[in-house]
C-alpha cells in the first residue's frame, strides 16, 4: 500500500523527474538555468544528485534545445525538455512539429522520439502578452503529439512519470500559477497516471463541466457556489488533452444532458471547440440545453491587473453560465 504525502505541484514534478532519472539512466533534463533549479525551482537539487551532464544547462537556443533533444531521443536517450515559458516554445516550433512529431512516422517506424516538452503556461502575476499564453489547442491539432495538462499535484507526478516513460513526444503543460498548490501525492516510486483517462473531479447530476489545468480549481469553486443555487455540477478534469477521454465525457453528458467546457485559453480555436463539436456531433439527441464554452476573449493578455483580470475565467463567470444553462 502506498503512503501519501502532502506536497506541492512543483515538488510533485520534481519527484517525478528524480524518480525517473534514478530508474532509467537514459533520462536526462535540459534547459536554461536548470543547474540553479530552473526558473520556477522545479529542478531544485537535481543537479546535486545527477550532475551537470544529466541536468544540463543550455545556451538560450530554444530551437536547438528542442532539435538536439529530437536527435538525442532518436538515438535512445529520453530528454525532458524545459521550455521555461510556453511562449518561448514558439521559438522551436519547427523542431516540435516538423521534426519531433513526425520523425517516427516519416521514417516508417524505424525510430522513436521519447521526449517530454515541458511548457509552463497560463496567466501568472501580470506577465503580459508574451509570458501568459495557453496554447495547448495547437498541439492537439498535430499528429504525433501527446498533450497533457495536469491540475493536481498527484497528477503532476503521475502524468509526468508516464510522459517520461512514453515513447512518443509529449507536450507537458504545467500551469505557472499552480506551482505552490498542495495536495496528497502517493510516495510510491511507481505511481503512474496513464496518459489518456480523465479524472472525475466532482460528481454531479445537472451539468457536465469539462476542463483542465488550473481551471479545475475555478470549476470546483464554481460548483460550490452553484450548489447554493441548487445546481449540481459534475467536473471532469481532462488532464490529458490528446488523447482525451471521450468515454468519460460522453457517459457524463448522457447522465447530465448538459455540457460546459471551460478553459483559460482563448475561446476561438481553443480545445473546447473540439470537445463541444464532438459532443454536438455524437450526443445532440441527449442534450437538453445548448452546449456552452467559456474561454478567454480573443485578445492579447494585458499587463494591467484589472485588464488582465477581465480575461480570466472566474468561478462567477462559470456559475453565471451554469444558471443560464439550467434556465433553458
Amino acid at each position, binding site marked *: 500500500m502506498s503512503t501519501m504525502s502532502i506536497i506541492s505541484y512543483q515538488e510533485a514534478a520534481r519527484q517525478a523527474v528524480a524518480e525517473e532519472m534514478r530508474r532509467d539512466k537514459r533520462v536526462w533534463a535540459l534547459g*536554461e*538555468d536548470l*543547474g*540553479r533549479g530552473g*526558473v520556477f525551482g522545479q529542478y531544485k537539487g537535481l543537479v546535486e544528485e545527477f550532475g551537470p551532464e544529466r541536468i544540463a*544547462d*543550455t*545556451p*538560450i*537556443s*530554444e*530551437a*536547438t534545445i528542442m532539435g538536439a533533444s529530437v536527435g538525442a531521443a532518436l538515438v535512445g536517450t529520453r530528454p525532458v525538455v524545459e521550455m521555461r515559458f510556453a*511562449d*518561448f516554445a514558439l*521559438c522551436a516550433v519547427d523542431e516540435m512539429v516538423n521534426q519531433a512529431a513526425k520523425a517516427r512516422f516519416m521514417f516508417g517506424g524505424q525510430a522513436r522520439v521519447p521526449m517530454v516538452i515541458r511548457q509552463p503556461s497560463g496567466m501568472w*502575476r*501580470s*506577465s*503580459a*502578452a*508574451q*509570458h501568459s499564453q495557453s496554447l495547448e489547442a495547437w498541439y492537439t491539432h498535430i499528429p504525433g503529439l501527446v498533450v497533457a495538462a495536469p491540475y493536481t499535484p498527484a497528477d503532476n507526478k503521475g502524468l509526468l512519470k508516464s510522459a517520461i516513460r512514453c515513447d512518443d513526444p509529449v507536450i507537458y503543460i504545467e500551469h505557472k500559477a499552480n506551482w505552490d498548490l498542495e495536495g496528497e501525492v502517493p510516495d510510491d516510486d511507481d505511481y503512474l497516471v496513464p496518459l489518456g483517462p480523465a479524472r472525475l473531479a466532482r460528481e454531479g447530476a445537472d451539468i457536465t463541466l469539462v476542463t483542465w489545468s488550473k481551471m479545475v480549481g475555478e470549476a470546483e469553486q464554481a460548483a460550490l457556489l452553484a450548489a447554493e443555487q441548487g445546481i449540481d455540477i459534475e467536473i471532469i478534469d481532462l488532464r490529458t488533452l490528446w488523447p482525451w477521454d471521450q468515454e468519460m465525457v460522453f457517459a457524463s453528458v448522457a447522465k447530465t444532458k448538459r455540457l460546459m467546457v471551460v478553459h483559460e485559453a482563448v475561446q476561438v480555436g481553443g480545445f473546447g471547440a473540439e470537445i463541444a463539436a464532438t459532443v454536438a456531433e455524437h450526443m445532440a439527441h441527449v442534450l437538453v440545453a445548448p452546449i456552452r464554452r467559456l474561454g478567454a*476573449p*480573443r*485578445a*492579447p493578455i*494585458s*499587463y*494591467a*491587473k*484589472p*485588464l*488582465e483580470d*477581465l*480575461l480570466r475565467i472566474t468561478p462567477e463567470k462559470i456559475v453565471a453560465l451554469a444558471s443560464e444553462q439550467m434556465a433553458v
Partner: protein
Amino acid sequence: MSRQATSTDGHNIDRDRLVDLYRTMRRIRAFEEAAEKASITGQVGGAVHLSIGQEAIAAGVCANLRQTDQITTTHRGHGHCIAKGTDPGAMMLELFGKEGGTCGGKGGSMHIADFEVGMLGANGVVAAGLPIAVGAAHGAKLMGEDRVVVCFFGDGAINRGPFMEALNWATVFKLSVLFVCEQNGFASTTHSDAVTGGGGANARAESLGLEAHTVDGNDVAAVDALVADLIPRIRGGSGPMFLSANTYRLKGHTSMDPALYRDQDQAAAQWDVDPLIRAADELRRLGLADSDLAAIDSAATGEMSRVSEAADAADTPALEHAFADIQDVGAPVWEAQS
C-alpha cells in the same frame, strides 16, 4: 573582474557633455531604484529587470542619436528608453499598469515602447529585437531615410539563432544598424561564458561581415566617444556595425532575485566600478563641485520619486482598453464582453 581604472582620461570629454551623460545615468539609476522599490512592495506587479550598473551604455550610446533614429531593446530596457528620451513618468505609469503609461498600461516593463522618440519597443523574448531592428533599418533604406537603428541586447542573446540571421541580413542588405551587446556576464542565473562557444560576440559579428568594437561599458565617456565615431559612419552608409560593451549586472536577474549563484565578493567588488561612481570621480577631477553632483543626484531621485508617487496615485486603465488596438477586423467588441 578586478577593479578597472577609469579610462575617460584619454577622451578629452567636455565637462558639460559628461554632466549630461552623468545626469542621464543618474536618472536611469533613480528610476530603477524607484521601480525596484515598487516591485518589492507589489505596486508593480510584473517582472522588473534592472539595468543598475549598466547605465553608461544606454547613456553613452543614445547621446549620439537623433530623435528620428530608432532603438529596440530587451526585457532590461529602462535605461535605453530614458536615454532615448522616453518620459519616465509614462514609463513608471506603465510599470504600475496605469492609464497614461507608454502603452496604456497594457505592456508593462518588458514592452515599453515610445514611437515618438524612436523607441520601437522592449521585448520579452530574448533576441527577438534583433530582426525587428534590422527590419526597421530595412524600412528606412526602402524609404530613403538616413535613420540609424540601434539594437540593444545581452550576452545571452547571442546564442539564439535570430542573432546570426539578423546580423547576416544587415550585412547582406547593408543596413544602418548598430548592434550593441551588453556583456554583463550573465544570462539569468547562468554565466554567459559557460554556454557560449568560440570567441564570443565580436568574433561572430566579424565572421558575418560586421566591423566589431569593444568598449569598457562602465566608462560612459569611452562609450560616448566610440559611438560618436561610429554613428556618422553608419549614417553615411558604412553598413552595420557591432559593439560589445563590457559591464556587470549589479543586481539579480529580476528585482526578486538575490543572485546567490554568483561569487558574492566579486559581485560586491563590482559596486566599486559602478559607472556612476566612475563618472562622478571623473567629473570631480574635471572640477565639478560635490554640491553640483549632489544636486544632479537629488534632482534625479526627486524626479523619480515623484513619478513613482504619481504612478501610484494614477487611475488604472479603462477596462475597455483590454479590447482596444487588437486588430481592425475581428476584435472582440467591448460592449459584448462587459
